[in-house]
């Protein structure tokens, strides 16, 4: 098994895919490396959040996704 990375909103356009898999475990440094420099730059921005296993991380740099977990990359929202 692996970790699934899900790209939301404009990050999906940048990634060119809705989701992709990466080897587990996945930490912050490996995530940045995995998604490439352009997305990594976005992820470092304060207004971009990261969720792991259905929970938004208070500190995204503390990410540690295990086998079978899903990591979602969440750019600024706009509903309503």
């Amino acid at each position, binding site marked *: 098994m692996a970790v699934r990375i899900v790209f*939301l*909103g*404009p990050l*999906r356009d940048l990634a060119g895919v809705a989701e992709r898999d990466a080897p587990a475990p996945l930490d912050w440094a490996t995530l940045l490396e995995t998604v490439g420099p352009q997305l990594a730059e976005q992820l470092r921005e304060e207004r971009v959040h990261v969720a792991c296993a*259905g929970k938004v991380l208070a500190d995204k740099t503390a990410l540690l996704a295990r086998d079978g977990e899903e990591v979602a990359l969440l750019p*600024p*929202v706009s*509903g*309503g």
Partner: protein
Amino acid sequence: MARKSRCCPRSAVARLALSGAADVRLLEAGLSVGEALAAFNAAHPQAGGVASFLGKVRPSAGDSPVKALELTHYEPLTLPGMEHLAEQARKRFALDGVLVWHRIGVLTPGEGIVLVAAAARHRRGALEAVDFLMDHLKSAAWLWKREKRGIGWHWIEPRAEDHAALARWQ
């Protein structure tokens, strides 16, 4: 796991038995404001007032005609977040009932995007709850919106005034 299968929205039209004090839905198909509010009103006969807001796809953004609007959500977060928001509003404004429905998918101008309603003993609470809910849905719910206009799709981000509106409640 396909994205689609994780999503379990219910049709606005098919089920008009509202669920308890908070009825929160993500809808893939049309949002019928008349039926929704008639059902909500009937579900809260003891409330002195019912306030509502319906947000619709505008036919243009600035000078450009809008051809379509797309709303993306993230199943593990979006509906739970909206349910939490509805519960906050219910407690904060002592509501008898609250309704929060949001469309996802592709919409065309004139279609309803979001419907919120609040039933309360007095009108001030109901109106403030609607204001509170809309401010939060606009810039604090897990939804992403893009518009098709001119030569392609454009992602929408909350404006500074949307963030200012949200800050009023903190």
